[in-house]
């Protein structure tokens, strides 16, 4: 009975709303009352819908752009709070909307599973955090030197730092030999002696080996340059500088439901396009909120939708969203007009004049608002004048 009512309203209400009503209505509700609820909901919903011909894009652009002029250009710093330097303000918004893959300050917030989040064993938490940090060979080495007679590289180890990082000589050797097969490594206690496997090496090649092993990744997660355990709302989380979502989510100590990054491109890779859209909205809104501005989320949602419709995240640049426009004139009026027109001429592109900019250029009525409706008159059939 009830299900039938819900079905009836499927065409008038989105599924999410119907589900919400179903979950929140008392189980014992009568059919007549439920119908009333649904009717009221559909009326409210219809009233909230945007009218056809409303210039939502321009309104969104103005709604974000106008408060944007009041935004502080530079990063905010909160004195006394253990926080890392994060790009905020206008530069961050530009970064997100341009759809950049390389962020200025990539960052992760790693949530932990229950046992660790409570922070009973702080020392364990600290060790886990430290283990996340990417460690290269040079980070715990005091000196790289070359023995010219033997043509070997001597790596002097800093035992104190190694202990801190929980490393042993054998672990290091294992890590190095995993990455390069052409080296013979001899454990010498306080130092490692590295020699090439090939017999006839020149000094030059040994030097190259020395430079190469310097940056070898020994431990931790690639890309994470800094870790900072922070207490937030009764639980411990780890904030990192640098981001590598794919690898972090593989760790079993990590709560993969809540762990997140500010790198939208990574979210798209790991979690998919819907998550990326959500991330864009969240990240842009975070900046706008932090500046004390007041912008309706729906404007940001529209921008995020525009960036994600194609299935991949596209920036609002001439290479991204704008390049998808079907109109030659619209593309040309954005940036690089000559390039756009010549490329269009080469393939004989046709501009259908379906959108706003093109028609404004031609001094024609634009298909928005009052310019949208057309009058259709049925000709009387049969009779000819």
């Amino acid at each position: 009975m009830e299900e039938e009512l819900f079905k009836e309203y499927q065409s008038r209400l989105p599924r999410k709303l119907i589900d919400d009503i179903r979950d929140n209505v008392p189980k014992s509700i009568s059919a007549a009352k439920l119908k009333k609820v649904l009717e009221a909901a559909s009326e409210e919903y219809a009233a909230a819908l945007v009218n056809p011909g409303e210039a939502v894009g321009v309104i969104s652009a103005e709604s974000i752009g106008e408060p944007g002029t009041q935004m502080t250009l530079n990063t905010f710093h909160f004195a006394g709070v253990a926080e890392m330097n994060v790009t905020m303000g206008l530069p961050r918004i530009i970064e997100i909307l341009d759809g950049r893959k390389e962020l200025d300050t990539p960052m992760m917030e790693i949530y932990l599973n229950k046992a660790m989040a409570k922070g009973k064993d702080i020392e364990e938490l600290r060790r886990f955090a430290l283990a996340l940090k990417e460690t290269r060979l040079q980070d715990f080495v005091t000196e790289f030197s070359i023995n010219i007679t033997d043509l070997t590289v001597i790596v002097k180890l800093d035992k104190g730092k190694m202990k801190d990082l929980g490393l042993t000589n054998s672990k290091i050797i294992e890590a190095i030999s995993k990455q390069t097969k052409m080296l013979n490594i001899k454990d010498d206690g306080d130092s490692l002696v590295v020699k090439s496997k090939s017999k006839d090496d020149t000094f030059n090649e040994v030097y190259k080996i020395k430079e190469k092993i310097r940056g070898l990744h020994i431990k931790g997660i690639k890309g994470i340059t800094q870790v900072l355990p922070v207490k937030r709302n009764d639980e411990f989380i780890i904030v990192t500088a640098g981001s590598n979502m794919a690898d972090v989510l593989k760790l079993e100590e990590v709560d993969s439901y809540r762990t997140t990054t500010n790198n939208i491109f990574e979210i798209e890779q790991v979690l998919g396009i819907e998550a990326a859209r959500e991330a864009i909205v969240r990240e842009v809104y975070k900046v706008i909120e932090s500046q004390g501005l007041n912008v309706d989320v729906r404007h940001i949602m529209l921008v995020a939708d525009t960036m994600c419709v194609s299935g991949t995240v596209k920036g609002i640049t001439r290479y991204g969203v704008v390049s998808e426009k079907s109109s030659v004139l619209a593309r040309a009026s954005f940036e690089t007009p000559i390039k756009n027109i010549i490329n269009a001429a080469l393939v004989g592109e046709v501009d259908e004049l379906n959108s706003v900019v093109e028609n404004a250029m031609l001094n024609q009525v634009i298909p928005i608002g009052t310019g949208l409706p057309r009058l259709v008159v049925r000709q009387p059939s049969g009779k000819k004048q």
Partner: protein
Amino acid sequence: MKMEAEVYLNNEYVGTVDEPLEFVSRIREERRLGSITSNLNIHYIEKSNEVYIECSKGRARRPLIIVKDGIPLLTEKHIKQLEKNEISWSDLVKQGVIEYLDAMEEESALVAFYENELTPKHTHLEIMPLAILGYCTSLVPYGNFNQSTRLNAGSKNQKQALGFYASNFSVRMDMDVNILHYPQMPVVQTIMHDISGYSKHPAGQNIVVAIMSYKGYNMEDAIILNRGSIERGFGRSTYYRPSIAEELRYAGGLMDEVCIPNKDIKGYKTEKDYRLLEDDGVIFVEAKVKEGDVVIGKTSPPRFLSSMEDYSLASNIRRESSINLQHGEEGVIDFVLLTENEEGNKLFEVRIRDQRIPEVGDKFTSRHGQKGVIGLIVPQNDMPFSASGIVPDLIFSPHGIPSRMTIAHLIEMLAGKTGALAGRYINGTTFDAEPEERLRKELLSLGFNESGVETMYNGETGEEYQAKIFIGNMYYLKLKHMVANKIHSRARGPIQLLTRQPTEGRAKEGGLRLGEMEKDTFVAHGAALLLKERFDSDRTIVPVCEACGIIAIRDEYRNKSYCPICGDNTTVSEIELSYAFKLMLDELKSLGIYPKLELEGKY
């Protein structure tokens, strides 16, 4: 181990020294002794271990009294000698009593503000605290009570004030100058007014200012003026602008001629435009001129002498090239000058004068960066008045004070009031002014409220205002931005030749651009038809060949349209589009791109 310090002379590496500190102090000693030039500054940067010596031109430097062991080298003896004119400033510099420091050397100096602050650590003493300010900033009275940004604004405003810029102004031909009528010396002065001879070029007037609101016409920094004050001459000025014509010589012995142009000349205006010219082709002095009137009549030879045919007719086809008043200009001819320039060409200069009486929109300022434009001019009988019958010349909005924190503005009013009542000038020198407390006491002894407030009455109803109004005298400046030079409107007017869009700028009677962002607001409102109408200024009707889509040709003479590609045998339809778009299509064609218009029914 101490490294040798690198030495740079005018930013060029010259060598090293072992003991940089000793080296620097020795150079300074030599400079004070006069054995090396006094135009040299030296500074040692400890962090990078470098010594910089500067003696290039263009550095800003300022003089300071040298201090040794906490005792300034300038003594009473020097001052007595100075008073008797036995020694001069440059002698003090030569004697090593005073030296000039540049920005770099200042870093290594510890300068005392006042003599009683001196300790053995100090290296220099200010000649007077005012010396930290520049010329214009020193002219702001009680400057130490203002926010520093207001001092900057205040000194910038003073540079734009109308005044008495040169006493021989009547025989000068300066571009765009103004003379203030009845300029006065300020009642509240600084020592800089004396030093600079401000009495020879004053730039403002002392007026009575009341801080209150009046009918809302002094919102947002506007000010209200008393019409009576204006009629008595407050803020009146004269604007001078010369028009210049030169008899140029051209190749082939041809030249410009200043004369009343003949009627058969190319580009002849109307007889009326030339009516003010005398026989020599120049306007007479004291002629009243309006826009479009010719000031100097001039004809020029034809622009291009291509064929012999033109040559023979050269005398007939001379061009009109008179100088006439530009759009919006008017005035009286003040001065006519005939002379010769460096190239030996005859030069005609005509100066136009125009009296400027303050009107709504003219800009005025006090000396504290409190600028504003006139919002309303009120007849004297409607202005508020005080118990003693004083009517303010100007009403200033109280909202201008709290956020800008120009306390000196208020103190100047108090000081000005005291000075005006006591009949004396008040010393308002920054850091060294007559104290406010004394002014208040004097004001009280003169029979006024010591806080400067007075009971005021509504000028229209005679009712007493509930609040006591702060009223006082202060020095106001008229700034050179006057509406008469800026007012601009256009309904129809000239268009550009290339794009057929309206011209830009006041001088060309241009339109105000409805730009891209303004366009967006129409789009956001969905006002599609309004947008189209706004952009209709350059719309054209263009014949288009339906077969090939190229712009066709309309031959009105034969009453026929044809296509340059398809010829007569095609349908040509007329469509409406903006001329700028048609121009773009033409430009594409010139690039070798063939823009085709595919036509379809509108409905």
